[in-house]
């Protein structure tokens, strides 16, 4: 039976809460996550319920936060480390890519940690509070990257990430926090499998592959194209970026024979490249047109609304690109 409508942020909160109730090995550490409840209030009320020893306020030390999480994970705990803004994960880049991600492979060490934090733009955050770090970590065997776009997956993926045996980078788009709502079933446990994409919209003429905030802009564009142009667009929500769900990607390409990859991240070195390469290798013969990309422009994200709106991909950009590709 359906429960009350909840926001993306509330669903994430519920998922964290349920896992902490379920498994006492789970604990949270990060800056201002305790009494204050985190910069975006994701852990609001947690320290009261679970105590300061399971909701640990740390110094401003991202490398120590991630490193300490790793050590605790080796000993059997299930740490969830918060980056106040995901932009600061860059300070833990060495610890995550060299220590954490390689631990199982090089030394047989289990390191089941979750590193999570608010990412993404469209919120006038400027160059250091709007970043999309997925591409910087895509190149890291040993790490998993999940990126929920829906309220349901916000909950289902945080729970799955905490239960995963390997380190997971959980990216939550702050533009979605309070913007989208959904009724979640009560009673039933929501777990979204890691590594599986989701068909967000069925279509015949063209496929859009996206995730996160641009998934919604892609869906908006799809509706517009259906209405205005009678073009039927399929939309695939990747949900997990590492490992990628090649089967789902190939399936939609083979179905529509045209693909547009949409991401908010800058173009060069963005994840669209990897996806394009895989489609080439696995479905080249099915392509009736070039794999095209709609992405941010290759600049640090500027602060002014006029600039940010231009730099980041908008629904109209997706519509224009899809129209061009459909007509190809």
């Amino acid at each position: 039976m359906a429960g009350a409508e909840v926001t993306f942020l509330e669903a994430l909160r519920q998922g964290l809460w349920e896992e902490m109730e379920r498994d006492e090995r789970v604990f949270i550490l990060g800056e201002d996550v305790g009494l204050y409840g985190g910069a975006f209030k994701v852990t609001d009320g947690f320290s009261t319920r679970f105590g300061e020893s399971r909701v640990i306020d740390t110094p401003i030390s991202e490398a120590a936060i991630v490193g300490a999480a790793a050590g605790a994970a080796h000993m059997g705990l299930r740490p969830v480390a918060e980056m106040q803004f995901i932009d600061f994960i860059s300070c833990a880049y060495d610890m995550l890519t060299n220590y954490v991600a390689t631990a199982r492979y090089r030394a047989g060490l289990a390191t089941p940690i979750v590193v999570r934090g608010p990412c993404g733009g469209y919120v006038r955050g400027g160059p250091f509070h709007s970043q999309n770090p997925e591409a910087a970590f895509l190149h890291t065997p040993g790490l998993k990257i999940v990126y929920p776009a829906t309220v349901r997956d916000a909950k289902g993926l945080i729970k799955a990430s905490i239960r995963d045996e390997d380190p997971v980078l959980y990216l939550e788009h702050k533009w979605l926090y309070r913007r989208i709502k959904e009724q979640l079933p009560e009673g039933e446990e929501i777990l979204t499998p890691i590594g599986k994409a989701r068909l967000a919209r069925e279509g015949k003429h063209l496929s859009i592959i996206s995730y996160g905030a641009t998934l919604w802009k892609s869906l908006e564009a799809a509706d517009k194209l259906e209405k205005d142009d009678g073009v039927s667009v399929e939309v695939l929500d990747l949900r997990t970026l590492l490992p990628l769900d090649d089967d789902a990607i190939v399936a939609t390409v083979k179905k529509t024979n045209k693909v547009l990859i949409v991401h908010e991240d800058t173009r060069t070195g963005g994840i669209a490249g990897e996806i394009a390469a895989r489609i080439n290798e696995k479905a080249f013969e099915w392509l009736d047109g070039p794999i095209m990309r709609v992405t941010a422009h290759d600049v640090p994200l500027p602060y002014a609304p006029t600039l940010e709106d231009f730099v980041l991909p908008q629904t109209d950009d997706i519509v224009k690109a899809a129209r061009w590709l459909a007509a190809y």
Partner: protein
Amino acid sequence: MALPATRPTAAIPAGAALSSEQLLEIYYYLRLTRTLEERLVALYRQTKVIGGLFRSLGQEGESVASAYALERGRNKDILSPLIRNLGSMLVMGAQPIEILRQYMAKADSPTRGRELNVHFNDLEKGYLGQISHLGDMIPVMAGIALTFKLRREPRVGLVYIGDGGTSTGTFHEGLNFAAVQRLPMVVIGEYNHWAYSTPPEKQFAVRDLADKAKGYGIPAVTVDGNDVFAVYEATRFAVERARRGKGVHFIEVKTYRRKGHAEHDDQHYVPKDELEQWSSQNDPVDRYMQRILSADMVGEVDLKDIDDRVRTEVDQATDACVNESLPEAETALPGVYVDPPAADKLWFKSV
């Protein structure tokens, strides 16, 4: 650990050797900082400020006094402020209209709408804007001070770090490097009792930030950060010492962040009485006024004139830019590199 809130209003230390013109100039910057921030709050409430708003209420004294101890002007000293060092930037010559334009992301703002609030530079005037990532400016300022040393220029670099910021790896690496190289650098550690919602005891296990200097082999002093003269004196001493080639000096200023981390923060985690005590009995501007008035070096009327002048300047600056336009969309593309001159405009913009 809050300082005893009431301070003896001692006479102005002779060492300060500040003329009444200088005393009034300092007052001007204190007043300008506070008035400008109050104006920003008003604009914020009118949703004219695009992003967040960060206050330095209660910290204007240490910002202005520390910057005032530097040599200002072309090819003189350089400082790198934090988000609560608006006063330091104004002293170095940043203009109110530049600050207003930055916060409102105007086309004519120093960064042309690319960066926020006080994140901008003027190396000619002597300030280097910070980036958000705390600690990073310490190594960068070390590099600036290294240049002064290599060129044998009698210049000093001054950099601020918050009590929270001292926990970063970059603070450690940068300060250690500067200490080993004996660079002409002064670090102002701002013990303002909070790092967002985190109190000092959750940030470090030492009592004073000055204790941290012991790990780098550099001298340190802790001063009352709300005593303009104490901060000015300590900074001047440290700066001149550094200028003489004696190396890095650390100054801890004990002060208090009287507003939330940013305007959105309701400070529910802050003990009300503590807040009340600092604002009613330990406001740096009030204390400064008492001092200079009781020392008969300036008159009420002088201060009054400055208040009026500041109000006028802030009004004029606001009127001059509040209705300015935001940057043109495509101005987002140039200037990532010298070559190529602009980022490609993406294909879907022109189909």
